[in-house]
């Protein structure tokens, strides 16, 4: 159960990256978080583990995991959770691995840090994890350096590193964005398999609607630091309950079965150092009214399990 805001206080400006976002995650659930660059999805997820440096970041709110508030617990506690009970798969594997260290050194780190295993035991676990992601000859390859791997292999290694401690939650931050399309599919398959096997909850961040529809149970749509809509994946793709989501879906070729003209959304995302009052999307929304400009909409339930932050949608004024 999470409700938080993240603000960055910089010398020349203050950026409200995430504004009072709330959501929850069930065990074994795959939650997708969709949004354009700058929507705050990455900052939100990193804030869960208190990753952004504070200062300049300010985290407010609550993030409850197993009864512990991740935002206010002690440093030692959050460190024991990171990599252990909640793990992160980062976007660009070639940048996310330390180029100076062998893969094995980096993969055993979580094990040696969070358990009392010996180096040899940790290495065995690491090799095993690597094997499960489908890397051939894992025992030998693990001794190589990151630059000797291709992007796809590295991402598998990243997955292995996240899974090695068998966490409860995995945050996957655009795991396929830096990869070729063919490799993307492979990675997704691996992830699905592993997660199903181990009953892990996943928060899947992406800007790619096509992928998220396939992979996730539920989807949050973020924009300008707020969640605009939450719905089960199939329902969202079939009939979106927010003008922004509609436009997004419309801009992806082939996501629905009907051929359609690709929509574009006029304008640019708002400047988060000075967000407009009211609904963040209103400057670009075809359906905006005066009320939209004034009041900041909250998520309202319009159907079991479906929430939208569009006042007009909620009131049934638009379909």
């Amino acid at each position: 159960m999470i409700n938080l805001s993240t603000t960055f206080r910089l010398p020349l400006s203050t950026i409200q990256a995430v504004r009072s976002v709330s959501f929850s995650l069930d065990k074994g659930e795959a939650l997708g978080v969709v949004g354009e660059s700058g929507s705050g999805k990455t900052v939100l997820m990193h804030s869960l583990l208190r990753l952004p440096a504070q200062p300049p970041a300010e985290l407010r709110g609550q993030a409850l995991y197993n009864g512990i508030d991740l935002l206010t617990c002690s440093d030692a506690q959050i460190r024991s959770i990171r990599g252990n009970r909640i793990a992160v798969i980062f976007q660009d594997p070639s940048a996310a691995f330390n180029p100076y260290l062998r893969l094995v050194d980096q993969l055993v780190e979580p094990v040696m840090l969070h358990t009392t295993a010996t180096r040899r035991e940790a290495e065995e676990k690491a090799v095993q994890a690597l094997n499960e992601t489908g890397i051939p000859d894992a025992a030998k390859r693990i001794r190589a350096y990151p630059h000797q791997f291709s992007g796809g292999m590295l991402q598998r290694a990243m997955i292995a590193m996240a899974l090695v401690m068998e966490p409860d939650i995995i945050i996957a931050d655009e795991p396929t964005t830096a990869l070729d399309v063919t490799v993307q599919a492979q990675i997704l398959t691996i992830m699905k398999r592993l997660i199903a096997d181990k009953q892990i909850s996943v928060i899947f961040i992406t800007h790619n609607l096509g992928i998220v529809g396939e992979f996730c149970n539920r989807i949050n749509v973020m924009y300008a630091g707020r969640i605009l809509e939450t719905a089960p994946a199939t329902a969202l793709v079939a009939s979106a309950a927010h003008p922004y989501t509609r436009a997004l879906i419309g801009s992806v070729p082939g996501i629905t079965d009907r051929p359609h003209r690709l929509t574009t959304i006029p304008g640019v995302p708002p400047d988060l150092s000075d967000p407009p009052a009211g609904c963040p999307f209103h400057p670009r929304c075809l359906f905006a009214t005066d009320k939209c400009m004034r009041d900041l909409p909250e998520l309202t339930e319009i159907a079991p399990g479906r929430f939208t932050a569009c006042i007009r949608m909620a009131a049934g004024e638009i379909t």
Partner: protein
Amino acid sequence: MSRTTVATVHTSPLRESVRRFLHNRAAVTSGVFLLIIIIASVAAPLIAPYSYAEQVLSLGASFSSVQHPLGTDLLGRDLLTRLLYGGRISFAVGLCATFVSVVIGVCWGAIAGWAGGKTDAVMMRIVDILYAFPFTIFVIILMVFLGRSLLLLFAAIGTVEWLTMARIVRGQVRTLRHSEYVEAAVGLGLSRFTIIVRHILPNIAGPIIIYATLTVPSVMLLEAFLSFLGLGVQPPASSWGILIREGAESMEGYPWLLVYPGVLFSATLFSLNFIGDGLRDAIDPRAGKR
């Protein structure tokens, strides 16, 4: 109902840079200080209380007093005056030599970066070889053997510092060479010279200015170093380097002769460096220290 799209106010990069620079207190303070010193030095003949050659032997070396705010040296010459005149020489050397090295470096780097291929490889190879060259030694040899003229001093110091500038310029030119607007200019048939001067140089002006500003203190240091060894400017003209040497020699009895010039010189270098850093942060905030 207005539907303005909220966006950041667009200012030119130049204005942004100036704004950032002015925010940097250290840089601005340094700038003011430096300006004062430079003006004072340039105006030395007008404002110096005494002639720099005037000796009042009876006084000998004396500490600060009302008539001589910074004291006098062994020959009774007023230290303040000598420092002011010394500043002229030191700054002159600093600026001229920097200018020389900038010109050489920019030309070399621009040609290498533009030509690419073999010419580039050869030119940069030369730079690489020269990098291993102990320039300090070279300059010392030059000064010893070819005389002590001021002109030679400029040239000698200038040749020491041009290497890094050449590297920087070449790197930038190479990158810009393949940028689209340059290719468009080539396509339009503009002469290479025009392209380089009108399109590329303004864009690399930033790093050039920054590096030039940071070269000036190096150059002044080199000049002072040479003067300290007796190889630079010759008496009766004085540069700060000479004054420091004299101070070091007579330091046992008359420490102020060392302290005043030393402090002034160091403060000037400080200021130049702060300004250079400030410029760098202003023009390219991602580079240098954060």
